């Protein structure tokens, strides 16, 4: 899993069935200390994350199937948590 920040959203009405009713957020990858890694990815939300939230993202198909409850969805990047705080030893 990796840490990211929700910076935007993608709206799409014509899409694969697996995406029905799912929110697609733009997530910027972060270093644990919060600095941007200058890379963004689209992730399906499953925890009602909003813009500005620091989130936990999984990027693997099996977990995406588990979280979305779908059988073999064409999805691999899913937001699985909204992070309250991160403590990293210096």
């Amino acid at each position, binding site marked *: 899993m990796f840490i990211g920040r929700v910076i*935007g959203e993608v709206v799409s009405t014509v899409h694969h069935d697996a995406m029905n009713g799912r929110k697609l957020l733009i997530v910027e990858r972060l270093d644990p200390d919060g600095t941007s890694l200058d890379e963004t*990815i689209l992730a399906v939300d499953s925890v009602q994350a909003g813009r500005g939230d620091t989130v936990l993202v999984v990027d693997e198909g099996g977990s995406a199937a588990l979280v979305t409850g779908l059988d073999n969805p064409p999805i691999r990047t899913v937001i699985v948590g909204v992070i309250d705080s991160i403590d990293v030893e210096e």
Partner: protein
Amino acid sequence: MHLARVIGTVWATAKVDSLTGKRMLVVQPLTHLLEERGTPLVAVDTVSAAPGQLVYFVKSREAAKALSPTFNPADAAIVGIVDHVTVGGESIFPKE
């Protein structure tokens, strides 16, 4: 998943059976600000996207799951056509 623009189409009559009847489009991956990033690739189309359209695609093993039967060699699949992209509350697409 990543944003991309459809820039072309690929026809290949001689191909593995599991790709028969599947539309293959050339897409240019984009950043969230719609800047080109990385090299164009070929993705199977599951939403009847057309050249010029902004789409999003999934890569690797999950791409094959966008098709049926799911046992196929596709490693990139377009799974949605984009209507809006907002970043930081600002509309990036369509441009106002």
